[in-house]
C-alpha cells in the first residue's frame, strides 16, 4: 500500500493554507474592483464578486489617461528590456570569453558599482535630465537603464560555463569576426539566460516607481505606477475605481510572469545558492 503519511498531509494542508493567505490580496482586489465603493465600505466586508467591474474600469479610463499610461509603460518596459538584453549579453559574452588588456580591472569596477546606492545619484540625475531637456520624457527612464551591472555579472557567470571554447575557435577558423561570433555562437547558447534576464528586467521596469515619480513630474506621459498613485490621490473617495485601476495595472504583469514562472523561479534559486 502506498498511503500518504499523516505528517505529509498536515504539511500539505499548512502549505495550501499559507498559499491561500498569500493569494488572498489578489482575490480581494478582484472582489473590490467588481463591487461599488458603497459595497466596499460596508460591514461585514464583501468577499464575493459584484457586477460592476466593467463600469469601474470604464471610469478609470474616463477619469485619467490610463490607456496612455499603459502604453507608456509598455514602451518603457519593452525598450529597456531589449536594450538591456543586447548590451548586457554582449558585454557578458566579452567578459566571459575574451582576455583583453584591462578586462579584469574593468570587471572589478563593474562589480564595485553595485555599492552605489540609487538615491546618491538621484538629484544629479534629475538635474542632468533637466539639462538634457528630458524631464517628463520616457527617455529619462529608458536611457539610464539601458545596461546594468547585475545583468552583465549574472550573464557572464552563465556564459562562462555554457559557451564552449571550441565553438569560438571554430568560428574564428571560419573567419567570423568578433561581432559575428557573438551573434552566431554566443546568443543562441545564452537563450535561457536571456529569457530570465528579460522577464526580470521587464517586471522591474514595469513596477518601478520612485524614479518615474521624480522624473515624470508635471508630465502627461506618466507610467502605470505613477498613474496609479495619482488615481489614488484624486479619487480616494471612489475606492472601487482605484481598485479597478489597480487590477488593470497588475494583470498584464502577472500573465507575463506566469508564462515563465517555473524557469524564472529556478534561476532565482540557482543564482542565490551558487552566488
Amino acid at each position, binding site marked *: 500500500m502506498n498511503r500518504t503519511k499523516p505528517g505529509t498531509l498536515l504539511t500539505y494542508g499548512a502549505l495550501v493554507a499559507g498559499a491561500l493567505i498569500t493569494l488572498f490580496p489578489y482575490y480581494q482586489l478582484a472582489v473590490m474592483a467588481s463591487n461599488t465603493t458603497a459595497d466596499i465600505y460596508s460591514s461585514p466586508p464583501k468577499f464575493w464578486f459584484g457586477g460592476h467591474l466593467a463600469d469601474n474600469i470604464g471610469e478609470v479610463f474616463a477619469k485619467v489617461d490610463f490607456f496612455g499610461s499603459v502604453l507608456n509603460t509598455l514602451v518603457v518596459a519593452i525598450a529597456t528590456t531589449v536594450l538591456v538584453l543586447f548590451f548586457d549579453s554582449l558585454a557578458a559574452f566579452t567578459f566571459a570569453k575574451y582576455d583583453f588588456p584591462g578586462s579584469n580591472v574593468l570587471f572589478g569596477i563593474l562589480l564595485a558599482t553595485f555599492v552605489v546606492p540609487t538615491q546618491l545619484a538621484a*538629484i544629479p540625475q534629475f538635474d542632468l535630465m533637466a539639462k538634457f531637456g528630458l524631464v517628463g520624457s520616457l527617455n529619462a527612464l529608458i536611457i539610464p537603464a539601458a545596461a546594468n551591472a547585475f545583468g552583465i555579472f549574472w550573464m557572464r557567470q552563465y556564459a562562462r560555463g555554457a559557451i564552449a571554447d571550441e565553438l569560438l575557435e571554430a568560428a574564428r577558423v571560419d573567419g567570423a569576426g568578433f561581432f559575428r561570433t557573438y551573434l552566431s555562437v554566443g546568443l543562441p547558447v545564452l537563450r535561457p539566460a536571456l529569457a530570465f534576464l528579460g522577464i526580470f528586467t521587464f517586471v522591474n521596469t514595469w513596477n518601478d516607481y*520612485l524614479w518615474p515619480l521624480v522624473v515624470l513630474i508635471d508630465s502627461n506621459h506618466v507610467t502605470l505606477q505613477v498613474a496609479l498613485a495619482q488615481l489614488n490621490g484624486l479619487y480616494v473617495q471612489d475606492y472601487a475605481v482605484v481598485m479597478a485601476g489597480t487590477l488593470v495595472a497588475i494583470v498584464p504583469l*502577472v500573465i507575463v510572469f506566469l508564462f515563465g514562472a517555473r524557469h524564472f523561479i529556478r534561476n532565482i534559486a540557482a543564482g542565490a545558492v551558487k552566488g
Partner: protein
Amino acid sequence: MNRRWKYLPQYLAIAPFFVLFAVFGVYPVVYSLWLSLQRWNGVSEMKFVGLENFAFLLTDTAFWDAIGNTLIIWVMSTIPMLVLSMLVALGLNSSVRHKDFLRVAYFLPNVTSIVAMSLVFGSFFSNEFGVLNWFLGLIGVDPVQWLNDPWAIRVAISLMIIWRWTGYNAIILLAGLQALPQDVYEAAKLDGAGPVQTFFRVTLPLLRPVILFSVVMSAIGGLQIFTESQILLGDRGGPEGAGMTMVLYFYNTAFADNDFGYGAAIAWGIFVVVVLFSILNWRLVQRPARVNGGGK
C-alpha cells in the same frame, strides 16, 4: 599600433555599460558631494554653505527618527519573514503534491507592483471596514487603528514586506536545502536524532551561508523601503511620522520640498548607514571562518 586596435571590438562591446555608468553613476555621485555643500532649490543660484548641511543632519531629529523607523521596520519584518520562509521551504522540501503551483503562488507577491499592493493593503488596514479589523473582531480582538497609531503603522508596513518577501526567501532557502548532502541526514537518523533535533543540529548550521544571503539581501532591500510608506501614509510618513523611512525622508526633502543641497547630504547620510550595516553583515558572514580555523 596593430596590437592596440586588435581588441577594439571587445572594448566597444563593453563600452555601453561604462559610458552609462560614467554619465549616470560616477558624475552624479561626485556632483552630489558638491551639491551637499550647497543650498539650492534647483531653480535659483546655488549658495555655498560648506559643511552646514552635514552639521544640521547630525542634529536633525527627523533624520535620526527616519533611521530608527527604518531599522525597526527592518527587524519587525525580517525576523518573522525568515521564520515563515524557513517553514515554507521545509514544507516544499518534503514530499508534498502540487509543488510547482505552491512555489509560484508563494513567489507571485515578489513580482507584483508595490504601488498596486499598497493600495490593496491600504483597504485591508481601514479602521472601520478593513478586512483585518473584521477578522480581528471575529476572534474577539478590538479593532486596531492601523494607519493612525505609530506602532500599528510600523506593523502594517512590516506585514506588507513579509507578504512580499516570504516566498522569495522560501525559494532561496529551498534551493539551499536541496543542495545539502543527504548522507549527513542518514547519519543523524542512525544516531537516533528526531526531526526537531536534526533541524537545529544539522540543517540550520549547514544552511548558514544561504540564511546569511537572505539576511544580507533583506538588509539591502530593507534600508531602501519607500513605496509602502509613501502610498499608505503620504510624503510625511503618517501620524507622528511613524512610517517615515530614510529614503522617504530623502525623497521628501529633495523632490517634495526641492531642498536639493540638504537632500544630497541626506543621501550621503543614508550611504553611511548602508555602509555601516554592510560591514556588520560582512563580519557576520566572516565569523564561521574564524571558528573553523579559516580553512575552506
